[in-house]
């Protein structure tokens, strides 16, 4: 449900419970306690960010726990983006002589 109902933000125990639910829902396990702790930190950061995104959104979007809640921005971009490498997409000229977009 909407993160707005979680104000003032999940407490440590609630956070761990939410993380456990996330692990069950998306079938996640971690190889050692250090990795678990790191992913829990990332999860907490993402929860806070989801709350901020929802506050900033001008539409009706809801943000919260998703299959990617234990990933950093960098990991997410690397795993799911379309870029072949770091850097911008190639500059493709839109206007090649004509506004007639039926022409290839």
């Amino acid at each position, binding site marked *: 449900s909407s993160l707005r109902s979680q104000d003032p933000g999940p407490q440590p125990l609630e956070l761990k419970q939410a993380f456990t639910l996330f692990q069950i*829902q998306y079938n996640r396990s971690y190889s050692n306690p250090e990795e678990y702790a790191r992913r829990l930190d990332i999860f907490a950061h993402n929860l806070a960010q989801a709350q901020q995104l929802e506050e900033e959104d*001008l539409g009706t*979007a809801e943000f919260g726990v998703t299959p990617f809640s234990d990933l950093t*921005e960098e990991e997410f*971009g690397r795993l799911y983006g*379309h870029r072949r490498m770091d850097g*911008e997409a190639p500059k493709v000229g*839109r206007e090649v002589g004509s506004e007639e977009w039926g*022409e290839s």
Partner: protein
Amino acid sequence: VPPTCDWRKLDGVISSVKKQESCSCCWAMAAAGNIEALWGIKHRQSVELSVQELLDCGRCGDGCRGGFVWDAFITVLNNSGLASEKDYPFQGQVKPHRCLAKKHKKVAWIQDFIMLPDNEQKIAWYLATQGPITVTINMKLLKLYKKGVIEATPTSCDPFLVDHSVLLVGFGKSESVADRRAGAAGAQPQSRRSIPFWILKNSWGTKWGEKGYFRLYRGNNTCGITKYPLTARVDQPAKKRPVSCPP
């Protein structure tokens, strides 16, 4: 342009939501979804096409490290079509130099591909009259998205930094909802409005978003949706009258 359009409502057009796993192949999945949809519309025949063929046979090598929709269309043109997903299934990884295109029967093909203008009204018209198209957007807000219509600003979602390709399958307008903007600005909290939106098919499985789909605000180039609107052409181009040069 009709007020609403949703190609999911026509049987045999939109295939099941796919899951990329850890392969950055959104570009291939969007392109395959585009051809599947157009094939379904033009030929009244449902097909599921091989994303793996696009990955294995692309001219750029490792398609799981990213790619572009136009490269997928070029691969389809070069190979004279695509095999079915059933015959050449998705593996989630690329086998370098193991293009098996010649081993499998082609079940769909394209005539060419085009880029549409960066105008949401024209994109809506094309979508409504021809079929689904691919778009490439900034995916920043999708990571933690659950449901609803995303309405961002260029500050919260840079329209120039597009990094994720998806299939545009429809558009509509939400029921009248409380206006978040009015609340934020301290204006009347009971202010209500309806929100025009695009419907997009993602490739992150059905457990993400609205059963694998999401909605973006329509009308202000949210997250760069107008930057690269590409589509294959599945029917024969209309015959044109010959022109003659004045003597």
